[in-house]
């Protein structure tokens, strides 16, 4: 048992923290608002080889384990960076695991940070149901025709390649019959509406109106993609929870500073015992969240049931704590905590959107119960 970071990961953490601490400026964030990311920061992250930490050595990276993800995403969250690294992880690993030799070329580019990716899986009616896929892919000649709609596809308009899920057989909510396809940017028949997100970054509504794809666009075995999708989402859940953990650390640091400096009724408000105890509660819960993220990251390679129990336990707990931290940080700041000008705002918004991706705290509590009963 060992809770120390390896030397490599420690270096990655230190480097990332240093770099992002300087790079994520108001200007960079402003630039990212219209395009979904800052090209400078993306280039900077690429230069550091951060993408490599998301992939295993077999895949051409130097990491890929749960604790690699934890290090990277905690720092992105801590700095409040909006660059689409999570999408690279989600889509990139799917390609790495399922792709043929040609498709694998994208992985090599991804490891270099040279391409941007997106994973178009959610649909208008799917909410958090991973198996609910109404988009259909039908064989047409040698290739495929895709018809359907994908919703809130983060980085969808910016991605060089999009991994799209579509049903090749089965009923709308069957686990069997879901297939993945790899679409390059600009494929004909795709209609994209790009828009900003509350937490920063961009997403897109994607309409697939009879999109014709060659046979080589199929990613992995036909109709057998569910397991890979679930695994990808488990990894992404670990990543987004680590991201939230980093954002919470920043929110609590800002709050701690504020409590020490802001005076009211003649003394720093941090001297008021009620706020002291609430700040202590916040800290205790953040440590709980850290342990939950460790639990999930440490079980990403475990058998499916164990892994998924930790997915739901962690997403539930971190979701609850993220809400507590965002709301308490704002409340302890008072009015200033609600303004766009003060730095807390973007972290609070980021934390408040954690529940909206990959299932909220209530959803995962119910799922945990079902997994335990199974």
């Amino acid at each position: 048992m060992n809770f120390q970071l390896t030397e490599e990961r420690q270096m990655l953490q230190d480097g990332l923290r240093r770099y992002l601490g300087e790079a994520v400026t108001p200007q960079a964030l402003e630039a990212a608002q219209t395009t979904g990311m800052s090209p400078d920061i993306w280039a900077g992250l690429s230069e550091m080889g951060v993408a490599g930490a998301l992939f295993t050595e077999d895949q051409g990276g130097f990491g890929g384990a749960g604790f690699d993800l934890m290090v990277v995403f905690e720092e992105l969250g801590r700095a409040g960076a909006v660059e689409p690294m999570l999408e690279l992880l989600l889509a990139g690993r799917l390609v790495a695991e399922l792709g043929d030799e040609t498709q694998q070329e994208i992985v090599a580019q991804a490891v270099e940070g040279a391409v941007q990716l997106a994973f178009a899986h959610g649909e208008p009616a799917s909410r958090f149901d991973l198996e609910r896929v109404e988009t259909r892919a039908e064989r047409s000649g040698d290739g495929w025709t895709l018809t359907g709609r994908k919703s809130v596809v983060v980085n969808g308009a910016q991605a060089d390649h999009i991994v799209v899920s579509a049903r090749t057989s089965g009923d709308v909510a069957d686990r069997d019959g879901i297939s993945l396809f790899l679409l390059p940017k600009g494929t004909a028949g795709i209609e994209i509406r790009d828009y900003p997100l509350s937490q920063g970054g961009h997403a897109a509504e994607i309409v697939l109106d009879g999109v014709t794809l060659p046979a080589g666009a199929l990613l992995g075995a036909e109709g057998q993609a569910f397991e890979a999708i679930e695994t990808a989402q488990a990894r992404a859940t670990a990543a987004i929870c680590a991201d939230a953990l980093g954002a919470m650390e920043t929110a609590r640091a800002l709050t701690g500073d504020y409590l020490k400096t802001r005076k009211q009724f003649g003394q720093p408000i941090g001297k008021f015992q009620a706020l002291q105890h609430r700040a202590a509660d916040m800290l205790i819960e953040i440590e709980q969240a850290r342990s939950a993220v460790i639990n999930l990251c440490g079980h990403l390679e475990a058998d499916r049931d164990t892994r998924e129990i930790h997915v739901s336990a962690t997403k539930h707990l971190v979701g609850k704590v993220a809400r507590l931290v965002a709301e308490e940080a704002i409340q302890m700041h008072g009015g200033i905590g609600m303004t766009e000008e003060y730095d807390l705002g973007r972290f609070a918004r980021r934390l408040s959107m954690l529940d909206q991706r990959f299932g909220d705290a209530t959803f995962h509590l119910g799922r945990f119960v079902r997994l335990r009963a199974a």
Partner: protein
Amino acid sequence: MDLSFTEEQKAFRAEVRRFLDEKLPKRLSDKGRLGQRLTKQDYEEWHAILNEKGWLAGNWPKEHGGAGWNAVERHIFEEETTAAHAPRIVPFGLAMLGPVLQKFGSKEQQDYWLPRILNGDDWWCQGYSEPGAGSDLASVKTTAERDGDHYVVNGQKTWTTLGQYANMIFCLVRTSKEGKPQEGISFLLVDMNDPGVTVRPIVLLDGEPEVNEVFFDNVRVPVENLVGEENKGWTYAKYLLTHERTNIAGVGFANAGLANLKRIARLEQSGGRPLIEDPLFAAKIAEVEISLMAMATTNLRVVSAAAAGQAPGAESSMLKVKGTVIRQEINALTKQAVGPWAMPFVSEALEAGSNEGPVGPSYAMSATPHYLNNRKLSIYGGSNEVQKTIIAKAILEL
């Protein structure tokens, strides 16, 4: 004990409902229902409709052109207008300044300003908070120095809601530095078109410039704009704060929010069923509904005592805390109910008639902005922390 309304009250409710059916423009109620932005003109239009009926100033006595309703009637009116998604009545002139002028203003001030409030000639805003003061309102730093028949005002106010629409601001200013902080405060009416007044918007978490900073740089204010006596402004300010407390529980907003939440939870699907059939989500709705059922009765207890002439004391602090917590929980559950649709932030879609439609169902677009914006509920009007301290001291005598 009797929980039912009297026949007169029921008749009044029916009359309000009929009026809303006939007179509330659908364009305005649609905006309310969808959570779209209301313009200055929207508010003015609704004020004018109410004023025509004599219902704009429910809490003013009839001699000043008000409706002269008691607390229960005001409560019924608020319930019905909120349920109908009518615009709220902008409180600064009507609920705040009006009562102060009626109680402490000169005859001339009453005759001049009160009709202008009813007729919409002035849009008032509130100059109470200052940077760094938070809930400590008595630490006023904005100064007003007497110079002949003018005061010269210098300083800064903040969190001025809808200050961008206002032409007039009522301010707490410091006219003396002697004695306790509360003793040297005066209550002054300032024309915002006067030279030296600058308004700067503050953008909040939801991206909206709802509040403002207001700067005063050697602004010359005629002495006749002083309300009451010099250095007695704290008394008037406290009186105003008490009046602001009517409807502090926000039961009407909470009821409308809960109805909206349930509607969304019936429309959203999870695991192939309506979200409202998910036992855990349904339980969360039920918990807040049960809380609200109790709080609504607490509110009626206070309202009913107020209608019988008792002044609400620390009870209104309890209503403030519980009322805001309930509304914030409803906001949080609504954000939760819309699932991933809470993520898109398309500001233009909140504008009625915009070319840019919402992403996803229209009921989803305001969930996140409302959740974020209403974090203010537990902060402003005396933060919930301040209210708890009041409760501990006033009721528990700690």
